[in-house]
């Protein structure tokens, strides 16, 4: 098939356009700020648009990593570097409202602040680092009982009020809450290590505490496995539960009774817990990512995360040239993984920004003036109003403006237009070849 179409291939001329070297970073979390800093350090003008009124994102709620690094000083450093950088302009309270232009020269409009001032930014590269949000699930009496917290809330208690932790005798953690279910089949990836991190931190403060982790599958990937082993050595009890028989939770005053089936004993066990920590994980921020996907014309996964152009070959590129994705906007990730991806984005973006023009490939429509009857169908069909009838009385399509969809080609009654790279004879040659094999 492919060979049959190659036989009909014609020499093509790539279309190039000058590139605007400004960068728009959408999202002011760790990923967005890291990308912005790397690119600004190379001397490119960066506009960092953040929806909320302050930088930092979800990571503002994280104090320590599994490895024991302090997160808050790191973020504070990042924020001050970004704010002070001569090439970074931070725009907080910004909501992206429109987007136009073509690869290399985009125009994105946003409304800023409570007054909704409209501002348009010209840029050639866009970095999406819009992040994800903690899953707002209400399972296991999360809202009604004070002893039930998410892992993120537990983490805050551990960091801010360690005295509370000293009063906990029994702690139960339930994994995969609101994820890996029929409603949300996505694995949040980070919750296993978060549970281990919090369990170890609790034992650090209160060595007598008994911690039960109820899990479906424990996935402390890579070197995190060491911390899992450490948790086991320190006496954290891991109990597997199946999706069909989830633990049951009953609030009892200040405490909660958690009942689960121990697979080894084959019996139901009830623990009266002083604290129940739910690993609710992250989900895509559907409200904002759906809107952005519509505005920027970008694909998303079934879970609502932005979909990269190719899992292995173009892992940080989005299908539209000049668009990149970093951090949890792409999938749930740890801080260090988000930073790696943000650095990858900065590197990929520089391969474009180092040149003065952007190559758009050769897929553009070409009119054969001998066949054109100037019937105006292409003029009416084109979604971008590119074709026009020129001084000679024929339709003309500017290859630099053509987006290469081929709609005019299929509508043209005289078959006077061909879309380069997807010429009719190439498609027909593929068809012929398929049936040559089948009918033989």
């Amino acid at each position, binding site marked *: 098939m492919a060979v049959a179409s190659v036989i009909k291939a014609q020499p093509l001329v790539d279309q190039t356009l000058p590139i605007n070297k400004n960068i728009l970073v959408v999202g002011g979390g760790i990923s967005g700020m890291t990308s912005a800093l790397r690119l600004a350090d190379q001397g490119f003008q960066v506009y960092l648009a953040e929806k909320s009124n302050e930088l930092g994102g979800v990571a503002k709620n994280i104090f320590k990593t599994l490895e024991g690094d302090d997160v808050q000083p790191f973020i504070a450093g990042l924020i001050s570097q970004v704010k002070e950088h001569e090439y970074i302009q931070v725009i907080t309270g910004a909501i992206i409202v429109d987007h136009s232009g073509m690869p290399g020269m985009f125009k994105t409009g946003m409304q800023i602040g409570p007054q909704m001032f409209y501002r348009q930014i010209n840029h050639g590269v866009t970095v999406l680092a819009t992040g994800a949000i903690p899953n707002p699930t209400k399972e296991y009496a999360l809202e009604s009982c004070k002893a039930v917290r998410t892992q993120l809330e537990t983490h805050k208690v551990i960091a801010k009020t360690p005295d509370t932790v000293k009063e906990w005798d029994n702690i139960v953690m339930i994994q995969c809450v609101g994820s890996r279910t029929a409603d949300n089949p996505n694995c949040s990836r980070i919750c296993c290590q978060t549970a281990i991190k919090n369990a170890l931190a609790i034992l650090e403060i209160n060595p007598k505490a008994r911690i039960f982790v109820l899990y479906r599958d424990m996935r402390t990937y890579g070197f995190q496995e060491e911390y899992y082993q450490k948790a086991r050595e320190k006496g954290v009890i891991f109990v597997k539960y199946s999706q069909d028989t989830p633990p049951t939770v009953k609030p009892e005053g200040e405490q909660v009774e958690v009942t689960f089936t121990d697979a080894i004993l084959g019996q139901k066990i009830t623990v009266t817990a002083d604290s129940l920590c739910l690993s609710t994980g992250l989900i895509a921020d559907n409200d904002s990512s759906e809107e952005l996907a519509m505005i920027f014309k970008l*694909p998303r996964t079934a879970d609502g995360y932005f979909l990269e152009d190719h899992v292995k070959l173009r892992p940080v590129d989005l299908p539209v040239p000049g668009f990149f994705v970093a951090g949890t906007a792409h999938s749930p990730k740890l801080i260090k993984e988000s930073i790696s991806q943000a650095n990858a984005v900065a590197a990929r973006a520089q391969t474009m920004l180092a040149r003065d023009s952007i190559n758009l490939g050769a897929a553009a429509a070409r009119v054969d003036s001998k066949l054109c009857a100037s019937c105006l169908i292409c003029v009416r069909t084109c*979604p971008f109003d590119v074709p026009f009838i020129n001084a000679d009385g024929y339709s003309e399509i500017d290859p630099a403006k053509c987006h290469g969809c081929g709609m005019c080609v*299929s509508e043209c009654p005289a078959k006077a237009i061909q879309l380069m790279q997807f010429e*009719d004879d190439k498609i027909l040659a593929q068809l012929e070849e*398929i049936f040559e094999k089948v009918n033989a």
Partner: protein
Amino acid sequence: MENFEPVIIAFCCHYCAYTAADMAGSQRLPYPANVKIIRIPCSGKVDALHIIKAFENGADGVYVAGCLEGDCHFKNGNEKAARRITYVRNYLEEIGIESERLMMVTMSAGMGYRFAQTATEITEKIRKLGPSPIKIAIAQ
């Protein structure tokens, strides 16, 4: 026509269905080998001529897979394609080919599962319909 294996041509839009097919592959989802994919930049690029030529050559079924409504990379190519499919279906009926053999489906780039499912469903549907009248004529 014993052991009838339908041949189905799928015109897949580069921005959605073609990527979904890729996704189905990377998720290791099986779908029938009866479906032959031809990549096009937009479902609106599929010419009535391409569809008719496919049937003329002996295709038992043809489907055009475009983006979800409102999600077209080129604004409205999928809507234009859907209109054209309706038109060509009437034309097929006129020349004696069941219009069910031509379909328009929509999916997003992330829907690998949907792609595999659609390919399987359409293959089964065409298998039930049997070989196309043109294929029978070619065989005779």
